[in-house]
């Protein structure tokens, strides 16, 4: 903490300075004038007039007139849709008439928001991409972050939809799902929103735009949390002196049923024949003779066993088996489980402002019917209100409030058996029992009818699921800013977020879960079964609470004089985020009267019925109290930017953070993150005389960002809340071994870029080149287990990333038919430059996501060298010491250098091509994404799973080696019995299953019809927009692999995970 003292003093001095500095006021005067079109001389209404770098703004009235309060030296910016912006520097005049030149599509000079300030793009030296309001709202129906996909450069979404995007490649290696560690920092209306808050609590209709901060000059201001990039979300607010606007929008989306056939699967008949073959080998003896835990036996094996015991004759058996061969669980899933999901979003909003106040208010209602039958629809209500005012001179107060109430049911997708031919329903649609944990033939007779029905029927479970969560979120912003003297503003901002979730999970006595527990704890005496587990429902109540508070004090200075422009900022802030949760369990619950059974002893070990799952068991409960996790940050930051003659800009920033994760030692070791940058507006130079170049700017930046990994270097133990089951003694575990050397991760970034606009602004774009070095990365390092730990998180790795980004906007056709193209190109290559080598084997590279070979690409894909199939028995062969070998374990153990290294498993090149064509009021656009230069591993057979887990495997089964000579035409190994140990793992990870993943995909199409008052004067509203979006089309236009595989579908799935389905959304937006 001591090291803060110096920064603290700096801040104090600045604060005190503000107190003693005498106030200087420039002379205020009122300026009037008219705005007209330079082409037609018509008066222009609704032209926005803004005093540059000040909050003052106004708009022209219907006659094109305006008046605004200004001071000498102010710069007025006139802007209107369809016209080029015009800037006028004021002298002492009182009247100013302005003519604006029309442009079909001016390059949007949008301000860059960093969450601390908004920066004029002319003076911005960093790299940032913005998804503007129009492009954002064109993707109605999608999630907020998802809309960045294939629309901005440098943002890559992983294959799994649930994962967070990465910005400009990998910066950290520490990845734990759900912790948001490798995810970008998300900032909503100036304040970070950590991963514990639900992004869905923000209504996408309330969002104005999204900015992605990519390099040090842009993101380093977020210091130790900026390492993975920053996504800044800004919501809509009212403006001063703006007339009251109303808008309404509605959309309706249909998501198709999941494509159950997307993953290839072997034929049911083949699967059954394998079962028959295994039965002949007495493979199921152990299961069939198990008279304690009674593991699952598949229906076909059950029939074959009955035939063997001569309980049935051969004709009956064959008829039964033939019946099973006709079943296919996918058919039943389509019919009884899935449905089209339907999503609706309705929204009304208003905003406006007077001279001294502005306001906005919106209401949203979203409803979502899931793709599972018998599921309740989720419903969200959102309210958002903003109010800003200037109660006295120089003082401005801003308040904002979001409130979201969301009711969402948990998924009611039951667990399905892995046996692919167990029907879910009979011919009349009545639910049928399928295998779950215990053999079905045993469950039929267990207890001779004295127990509750013990079968598991997935379709009944779907219907009985009663598990709903009600989440309420509040987000409050309060801020006051005071103009201390000309150019200097002081402000205080406070943000409070809270999210309360209340989940009620009711499992009635009809559910398998409760029936199973009642039966397990039953004892039959005579004719009566009595269970220690109470009859009635099992109720779990979960409460979660997440809260964050942020307090920020900020001084902003902005001053322009003569040819100079200076702006600077000094901020101190502290934040805290706390989450906690509680769970209560009630047994024997009656939902009608809210009664439940008390005095249940959860510590007695009761006998389990026929020892079906152990000898004794305790009655389960789920009571839990967790005061949760607290994360705290204290940060100091400052930046300054100086521009000379609108030509040269210099920028610098510094930030220092402290957190409670690491302990004071680590906080003190950490150096401040800082950045510097510069830009040069070449086209503003007097000598610049190329008429075909409208603007040209070069920029460059250098700096550091950090990454906070929430692990501690201290030796800690965890005291467990529940005593040890056997002894009843309280105990502790050791989650983290001591690691006094733990440091924060640092990311050094260099960015050089060029912004340009050519040919009368018909072609504009940005090129960026960047280089990143991530050092002191915390990686999970496999250790010698003899030490006592198998893995240790240590600062052991370094990465080096090079990349190029290109964004182009082109207006190909102008006139009655307009054709615009947006093109994005990103190249990112991350190389591992340092990784602690601790005796890695080839198999470590096959399994790990991040390839820890120095000098190789991170997330590399390696495979075993392929030596063909052994002609004598069809077993796969690899290479060991340069010779053919079937000693798979020795190959796994070999150095990776002797095996294959293909390249990256993440696209090194990716981007998009967006085309939009419009004619009159109709426009059609299409979004095409491409991903190039990477590899994937195709799914294939796995005999071990097929034999031992009753899992249906890949149709490569049909291509398997069956006789000598087949090795010339196939690479699929023979079906050996028993499975040759590790041959499955060798084959699946051999080079023959690795393919190029490059592909081009048509994602979305949008058709839009727009009318406005300009074209139809009698229209009762300002404008109406109707649209139809087709998203997630997933039409592969080109792919590198010859097998026709979709490289994004390489994970084997067992009915539970499917590729994202096509969504058809239609809707309207009205501006009143």
């Amino acid at each position, binding site marked *: 903490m001591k090291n803060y003292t110096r920064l603290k003093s700096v801040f104090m001095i600045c604060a005190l300075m503000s107190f003693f500095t005498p106030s200087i006021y420039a002379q205020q005067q009122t300026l009037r004038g008219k705005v007209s079109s330079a082409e037609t001389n018509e008066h222009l209404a609704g032209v926005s007039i803004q005093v540059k770098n000040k909050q003052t703004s106004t708009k022209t009235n219907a006659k094109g007139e305006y008046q605004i309060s200004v001071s000498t030296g102010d710069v007025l910016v006139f802007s209107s849709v369809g016209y080029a912006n015009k800037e006028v520097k004021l002298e002492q005049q009182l009247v100013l008439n302005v003519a604006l030149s029309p442009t079909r599509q001016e390059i949007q000079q949008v301000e860059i928001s960093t969450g601390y300030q908004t920066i004029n793009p002319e003076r911005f030296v960093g790299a940032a991409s913005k998804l503007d309001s129009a492009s954002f709202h064109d993707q109605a129906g999608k999630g907020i972050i998802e809309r960045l996909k294939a629309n901005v450069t440098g943002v890559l979404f992983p294959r799994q939809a649930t994962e967070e995007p990465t910005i400009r490649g990998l910066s950290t290696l520490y990845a734990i799902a759900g912790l948001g560690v490798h995810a970008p920092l998300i900032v909503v209306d100036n304040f970070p929103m950590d991963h514990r808050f639900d992004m869905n609590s923000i209504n996408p209709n309330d969002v104005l735009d999204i900015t992605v901060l990519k390099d040090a000059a842009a993101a380093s201001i977020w210091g130790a949390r900026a390492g993975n990039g920053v996504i800044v979300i800004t919501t809509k607010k009212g403006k001063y002196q703006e007339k009251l606007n109303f808008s309404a929008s509605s959309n309706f989306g249909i998501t198709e049923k999941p494509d159950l056939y997307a993953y290839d699967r072997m034929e049911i008949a083949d699967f059954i024949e394998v079962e028959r073959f295994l039965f002949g080998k007495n493979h199921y003896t152990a299961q069939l003779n198990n008279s304690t835990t009674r593991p699952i036996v598949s229906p076909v094996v059950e029939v074959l066993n009955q035939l063997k015991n001569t309980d049935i004759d051969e004709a009956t058996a064959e008829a039964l088996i033939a019946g099973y061969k006709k079943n296919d669980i996918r058919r039943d899933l389509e019919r009884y489980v899935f449905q089209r999901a339907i999503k609706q979003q309705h929204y009304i909003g208003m905003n406006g402002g007077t001279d001294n106040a502005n306001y906005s208010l919106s209401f949203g209602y979203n409803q979502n019917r899931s793709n599972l039958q018998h599921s309740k629809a989720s419903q969200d209500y959102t309210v958002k209100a903003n109010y800003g005012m200037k109660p006295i001179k120089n003082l401005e107060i801003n308040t904002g409030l979001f409130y979201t109430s969301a009711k969402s049911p948990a998924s009611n997708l039951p667990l399905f058996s892995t046996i692919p031919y167990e029907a879910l329903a009979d011919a009349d649609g009545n639910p049928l029992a399928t295998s779950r944990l215990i053999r079905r033939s045993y469950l039929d007779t267990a207890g001779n009818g004295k127990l509750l029905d013990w079968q598991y029927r997935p379709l009944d479970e779907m219907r009985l699921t009663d598990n709903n969560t009600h989440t309420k979120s509040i987000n409050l912003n309060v801020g006051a800013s005071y103009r*201390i003297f000309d150019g200097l503003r002081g402000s205080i901002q406070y943000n409070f977020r809270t999210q309360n979730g209340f989940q009620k999970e009711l499992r009635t006595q009809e559910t398998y879960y409760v029936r199973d527990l009642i039966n397990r704890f039953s004892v039959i005496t005579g004719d009566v079964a009595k269970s220690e587990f109470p009859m009635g429902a099992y109720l779990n109540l979960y409460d979660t609470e997440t809260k964050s508070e942020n307090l920020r004090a900020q001084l902003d200075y902005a001053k322009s004089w003569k040819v100079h422009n200076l702006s600077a900022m000094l901020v101190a802030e502290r934040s805290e985020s706390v989450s906690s949760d509680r769970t209560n369990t009630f047994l024997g619950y009656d939902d009608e009267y809210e009664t439940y059974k008390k005095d249940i002893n959860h510590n007695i070990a009761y006998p389990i019925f026929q020892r079906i799952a152990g000898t004794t068991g305790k009655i389960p409960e789920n009571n839990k109290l967790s005061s949760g996790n*607290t994360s705290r940050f204290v940060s100091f930051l400052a930046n300054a930017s100086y521009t000379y003659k609108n030509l040269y800009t210099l920028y610098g920033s510094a930030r220092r953070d402290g957190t409670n994760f690491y302990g004071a030692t680590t906080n003190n070791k950490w150096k401040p993150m800082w950045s510097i940058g510069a830009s040069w507006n070449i086209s503003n130079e007097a000598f610049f005389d190329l008429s075909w170049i409208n603007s040209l700017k070069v920029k460059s930046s250098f700096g550091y960002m950090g990454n906070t990994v929430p692990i501690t270097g201290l030796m800690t133990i965890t005291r467990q809340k529940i005593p040890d089951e056997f002894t009843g003694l309280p105990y502790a575990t050791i989650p983290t071994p001591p690691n006094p050397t733990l440091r924060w991760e640092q990311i050094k970034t260099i960015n050089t870029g060029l912004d340009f606009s050519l040919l009368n602004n018909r072609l504009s774009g940005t090129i960026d080149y960047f280089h990143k070095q991530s050092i002191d990365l915390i990686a999970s390092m496999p250790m010698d287990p003899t030490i006592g730990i198998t893995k240790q998180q240590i600062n052991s790795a370094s990465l080096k990333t090079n990349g190029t980004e290109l964004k182009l906007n082109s207006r190909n056709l102008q006139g009655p038919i307009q054709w615009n193209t947006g093109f994005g190109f990103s190249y990112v290559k991350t190389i591992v430059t340092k990784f602690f080598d601790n005796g890695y084997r080839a198999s470590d590279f096959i399994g790990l996501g991040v390839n820890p070979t120095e000098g190789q690409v991170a997330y590399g894909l390696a495979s075993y060298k392929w030596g063909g199939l052994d002609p004598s028995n069809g077993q796969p062969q690899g290479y060991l010491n340069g010779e053919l070998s079937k000693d798979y374990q020795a190959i796994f153990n070999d150095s990776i250098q002797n095996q294959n290294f293909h390249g990256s498993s993440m696209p090194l090149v990716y981007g998009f091509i967006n085309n939009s064509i419009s004619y009159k009021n109709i426009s059609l656009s299409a979004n095409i994404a491409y991903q190039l230069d990477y590899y994937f591993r195709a799914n294939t057979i796995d005999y071990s799973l097929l034999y031992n887990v009753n899992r249906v495997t890949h149709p490569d089964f049909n291509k398997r080696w069956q006789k000598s000579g087949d090795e010339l035409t196939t690479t699929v190994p023979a079906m050996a019995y028993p499975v040759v140990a590790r041959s499955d793992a060798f084959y699946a990870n051999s080079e023959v299953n690795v393919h190029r993943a490059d592909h081009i995909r048509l994602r979305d199409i949008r058709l839009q019809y727009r009318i406005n008052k300009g074209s139809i004067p009698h229209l009762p509203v300002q404008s109406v927009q109707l649209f139809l979006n087709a998203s997630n089309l997933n039409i592969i236009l080109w792919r590198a692999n010859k097998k026709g595989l979709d490289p994004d579908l390489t994970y084997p799935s067992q009915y539970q995970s499917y590729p994202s389905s096509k969504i058809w959304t239609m809707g309207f937006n009205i501006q009143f």
Partner: protein
Amino acid sequence: MKIMFLIRLCLISLAFIALSCQDFLDEKPAKHLTVPNSLDDLQAILNNRNLYFWNSSMPEAFADNYYVEESVWLAASEAHGKFYYHWDSKVPSDQTWNYFYTWIIYYPNVVLDQLNNFKETSENRQQYNTIKGEALFYRAFAFWQLAQLYCKPYSETAKTDLGIPLRTTAAIETPSVRATVQQTYDQIIGDLLLALDLLPEESVVPTKPNKTGVYGLLSRCYLSMRDYVNAGKYADLCLKAHSDLIDFNTVKTDPLPFKRFNKETIYYAYCGNTVSILGNPRGRIDTLLYQSYDEKDLRKKLFFTEMTGENVGSFRFTGSYDGEHNIAGVVHSITTAEMYLNRAECFARDGKKDLALADLNTLMKNRWDNSVPYPSITATSAEDALEKILVERRKELVYRSLRWTDLRRFNLEGRNITLVRNVNNQQYLLPPNDPRWVMLISDEVINRTGMPQNPRN
């Protein structure tokens, strides 16, 4: 100007608030997370079930108390430990080794390291000593079990034979180096003798060692070293403190008749690290072993259950001294019965025939059906008594992880026992003193440490 003054005042005071809290960053990230700061915390670490739960049933998997049907063996997967059945122990990562070192050795080492941060005072001496004694005991027990698997049995060549890495600190920097067999046993016995002075006479639960448990483990350890004088001495000390036997006539016939913490159990050690090939329903009791029990020997009924269906005539083990678990039920507990057998064996080897037979008969009387008179076991000589004791030793200590250690020491004494397995359409033999009597260390450990591997041929 007055308002402005106030506003500036507010601004500055808020700036103070933002900066003044020195303690703001000292908040623990989570309440349950704590740096061990009391002896209770250290005791809580030793209360973790990992310390008594993750003992290994590997010695039983290698031994000859059970067999597996050919078809069952073929159907089993590598995860069931099928290759251990014919003593193939070449694996990339070895759960047995890893569980010992990451739980039963690491946790005590953390405790012993952390103990240095606490001052021993007259108030805390008893707790301090108990913690230290427990830590030493758990670690010594793990070292001993590892020595039975990864080292040659203790013999004249112990000073040069490869031992195990003797990790006595939790410090990550310390490299793992294999000691000699002599050093390994010296460490075990040294630790146990230290623990003997520190531990109390009684412990709260049988999962916590006490003095009696230390005697028992010392006896077991010396027996494995074929130091029969000391083995007998400590068995005697152990039995003097705790000699209860369960009269099997009082045990109800039940699928799993024995209770978890029964009165014969001096120290309770469960083999949670189960090799499932030897458990129900795969492993069956060796037919000759089953037949060797007299019909009036209650163990025949209480230890084994006949299988059903087409497997009538085969038996599985259900006499676990754990009681609860019905998968394999292998325990490594130290029991009074084992101590009687140890002491009897040592008496016999010392030529004290009558004392030896007295111990054996004390035990056997409790195993015999009391509806018929107990036929006392007699012997013609001390050697004859020894043979009879060893027969009963095997029959008493089924699925206790002790047979492997016994076989290894018997073969050093020229008993010439060859183990046989018939699977995979072939016969696997394990002749005396074959290198496979010593397990291989996993590739992972060898690769990461460079320690020498145990030889094969």
